[in-house]
């Protein structure tokens, strides 16, 4: 494992930007900034006519690091310590579970908790516990 530094100020500020994004999306389009919901609806079946807007939001997510690199000349550290089979299994579980549970860290963890939704509180506590249990097994049970 890679030890990462504790960054309370940067994390608080970055979190505030995520919150600002969620508020702006609600104010302009009236929709929840849930990344799994937005990404999943880029695929059929299509239930409304919001495809272009969703694609634009996802494109913004992807372009953000490109802009950071253009402006600052570098990108912060990113360590992905997983081989291809693990990436595939984890990706499938993440995508399936996020849609099956109607949301992920952003939809439930940020927007849902901010709306004081009981469903989102249950979901957030569940995925936090499952994530912690998984890391515990992966790192401490061998």
């Amino acid at each position: 494992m890679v030890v990462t530094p504790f960054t309370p100020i940067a994390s608080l500020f970055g979190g505030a930007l995520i919150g600002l994004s969620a508020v702006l999306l609600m104010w302009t389009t009236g929709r929840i900034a849930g990344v799994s919901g937005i990404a999943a609806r880029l695929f059929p079946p299509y239930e409304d006519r919001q495809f272009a807007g969703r694609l634009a939001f996802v494109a913004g997510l992807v372009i953000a690091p490109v802009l950071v690199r253009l402006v600052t000349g570098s990108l912060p550290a990113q360590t992905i310590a997983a081989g291809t089979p693990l990436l595939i299994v984890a990706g499938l579980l993440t995508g399936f579970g996020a849609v099956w549970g109607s949301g992920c860290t952003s939809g439930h963890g940020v927007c849902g908790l901010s709306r004081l939704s009981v469903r989102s509180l249950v979901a957030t506590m569940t995925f936090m516990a499952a994530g912690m249990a998984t890391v515990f097994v992966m790192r401490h049970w061998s």
Partner: protein
Amino acid sequence: MTILIQFGIGVVFGLGLIVSGMSNPAKVLNFLDVGGIPAGTWDASLAFVMAGAIAVTFIGFGRVLKLARPAFADRFYVPTRKDIDPRIIAGPAIFGIGWGLVGFCPGPALTALGFGSASAFIFVAAMCAGMVLARFIAQLPSATRVVTPADPLET
């Protein structure tokens, strides 16, 4: 116009993920690693990401949702369900396992694509397959009979 705005809002979200450190799976895994507390390797930063995001969203939603309607839409599309069904536990449990295996949730995984990471590309491709599969299964007659209403994407 609204499409350009949504692009900008996505950029702000992505910048938040990068600045906060959430775009680094190692940081996320070190937060989830409560077993690392005795060794001093636990990274509590993610709690500050959540705190910052929820503080702004709680205040912002409180003001925005008092408006008659959004700036560019006919109404607010806010989830209304309050029931605790099996799926609101099973889904996040499955998602949490995937999250804990690699350290990517959907937002940071998509932003990682812009880092030019091949690993992120593989993860996102599998994630999208999982999403499509979940929506497909949710629409099967047997699944919709058990769970009503059957919109898997409503938060």
